[in-house]
């Protein structure tokens, strides 16, 4: 009995594909098919043509909302980086146990639902919330409005997205060979210059990975900015939802989705040329 060698080899090469098949079929069915339908709708609803795209690309509202979306995503990414980098550094310097403890604390926020976290911010930042109370106790008679501002929506989004940044940077930092730092020191690099010329470049892949992930996820945020943000700062996802829910403008909403998708792909493309997309996966 037994299989010939060549059959075995063939089986070996087929095996990964077979394993991938359920996922591939699933994605094709539930992601690609609807996506293609969205693309078709964007050029056929309400009538065939590119009118929807013309509207999206030239209308002042759409331009404003898209600019605001990318601006917000950029701001959130920067904040995540500012918060995440030092924290990741701390994790890479403490003992493995302590690092796991910190990681646990960071990922704990993933255990609560998105909506609950958003409402939690409403309670915290509300007029009768602890933050306002603290400010009043400290003698600020008229605390500035915290809720329904760019501040509150940015804060909540940073809270939700920071773990992605931290984990990406931490993975890279953890792998840095300590002897590299020591040799840099032996060559006379200290403090600022050690950081700028040695440590920062070594951690750059982590920064890039984390930033791309945070940026791309943030582009599609919907609930958080709607519930916490200021009325003037609309995100693209909210506007798309509005087009469909309020106006039944499936075509226009689809065109906006496609534009958002294309811009995101372009950003990923630039990133890929610069850093290589494969690095995103470790």
């Amino acid at each position, binding site marked *: 009995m037994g299989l010939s060698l060549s059959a075995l080899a063939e089986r070996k090469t087929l095996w990964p594909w077979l394993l991938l098949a359920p996922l591939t079929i*699933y994605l094709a069915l539930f992601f690609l098919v609807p996506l293609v*339908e969205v693309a078709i709708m964007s050029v056929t*609803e*309400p009538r065939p043509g590119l009118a929807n795209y013309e509207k999206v690309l030239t209308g002042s509202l759409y331009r404003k909302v898209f600019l605001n979306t990318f601006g917000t995503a950029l701001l959130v990414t920067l904040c995540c980086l500012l918060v995440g980098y030092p924290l990741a550094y701390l994790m890479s310097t403490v003992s493995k146990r302590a690092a796991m403890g910190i990681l646990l604390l960071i990922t704990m926020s993933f255990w609560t639902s998105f909506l609950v976290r958003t409402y939690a911010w409403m309670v915290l930042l509300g007029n009768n919330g602890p933050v306002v109370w603290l400010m009043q106790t400290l003698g600020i008679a008229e605390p500035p409005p915290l809720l*329904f501002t760019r501040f509150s929506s940015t804060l909540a989004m940073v809270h939700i997205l920071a773990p992605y940044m931290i984990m990406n940077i931490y993975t890279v930092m953890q792998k840095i060979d300590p002897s590299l730092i020591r040799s840099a020191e032996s060559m006379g690099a200290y403090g600022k210059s050690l950081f700028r010329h040695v440590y920062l470049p070594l951690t750059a892949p982590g920064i890039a990975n984390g930033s791309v992930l945070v940026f791309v996820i943030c582009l599609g945020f919907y609930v958080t900015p709607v519930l916490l943000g200021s*009325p003037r700062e609309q995100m693209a996802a909210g506007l798309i939802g509005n087009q469909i829910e309020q106006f*039944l403008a499936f075509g226009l909403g689809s065109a906006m989705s496609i534009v958002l998708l294309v811009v995101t792909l372009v950003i990923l493309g630039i990133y890929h040329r610069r850093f290589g997309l494969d690095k995103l996966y470790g």
Partner: protein
Amino acid sequence: MTLKKTHNALIRPNRRLFLQGTAALAGASALAAPSIGRAQSKELYINSWGGPWLEAATENLFNPFTEATGIKVNTVSPVSFAKLAAQVRTGVYEFDVTTLGGGDIVAANNAGLLEPLEEPYPGGLFQNGVGSHAFATMMAWRTDKGWEETPQSWADFWDVERFPGGRSLQRYPARVLPLALLADGVAPEDLYPLDIDRAFAKLDEIKDHIRVWWTGGAQSTQILRDGEVDMIGIWHGRYFEAEDAGAPVDFTWNQAELDSAYWVVAKETPNMEAAKMFVEFATSPEPLAGFVAQANYGAMNPAADEFIPDSAKPRMPTAPGNVEMTFEQDMLNFGADPQEVAMRFDEWLAS
């Protein structure tokens, strides 16, 4: 707005076959094709608003209907106008019956999303929807602000000198524009057709003081109850929720805006018979009376009045003594294309 039929016809059969075949393959038929599985069953899927609406509907409409007919009622949230359209486009139905307000029902009927219904009681049919209940968008405020006077009208809502504090209105121009005109001094009987430009000019004045344009009923209750805003244009049912929760709030029926909710059946839904039976049941005098009495709505079927206890009336916008102070929305004499106005409103918001 018309949905393109040719495109539907092209996409639908293929997609359905495709979904059926692959669903069987993946063993996930429940996920992919809800309507196919339950086409023959004695069940009905109703789109629910949640909150006090759902409580009252379950007790007075759903449960009695099941008892009377043996048809089980399931609810689906949230209420989605877009889903109604998407169902008819794709032929995959998540709910058979829903309620629409006066603004949406005209748009939905124009788009061919509604099954034609028969008039169940005189005057009960409007745009293929059966009139169920009236609700009001009214002015409410916090009583803990130390204002010397009590707000009386929408003009006071606009008056941030006498009544300083944050404001909130629904993000729904068809309801908000008339309020702006009232604030600008237009008499209720002269509102329609609306002077759209004048309304937007008046809205400019209050824009910086609107901290939230609320989009959900629960959200409006929360921001009033928790004092995130000090004055709000709110649905009356949602206001009473805040009041019952013990929040320091008050309201006026004066210049409250009456809107009507209609039961509609999704076009070509597989549960047509049960759906139509339900709509008739839900708008018949006794069940409707129980529903509106519990949820504080106003019954649109006049025959329901005799079953409504007097104790429920003070909280009903349509009760004598209240209704005289209110005014009615008039979507058929709106003054412009509501869709275009809504687009303009969106642009105005972002500017």
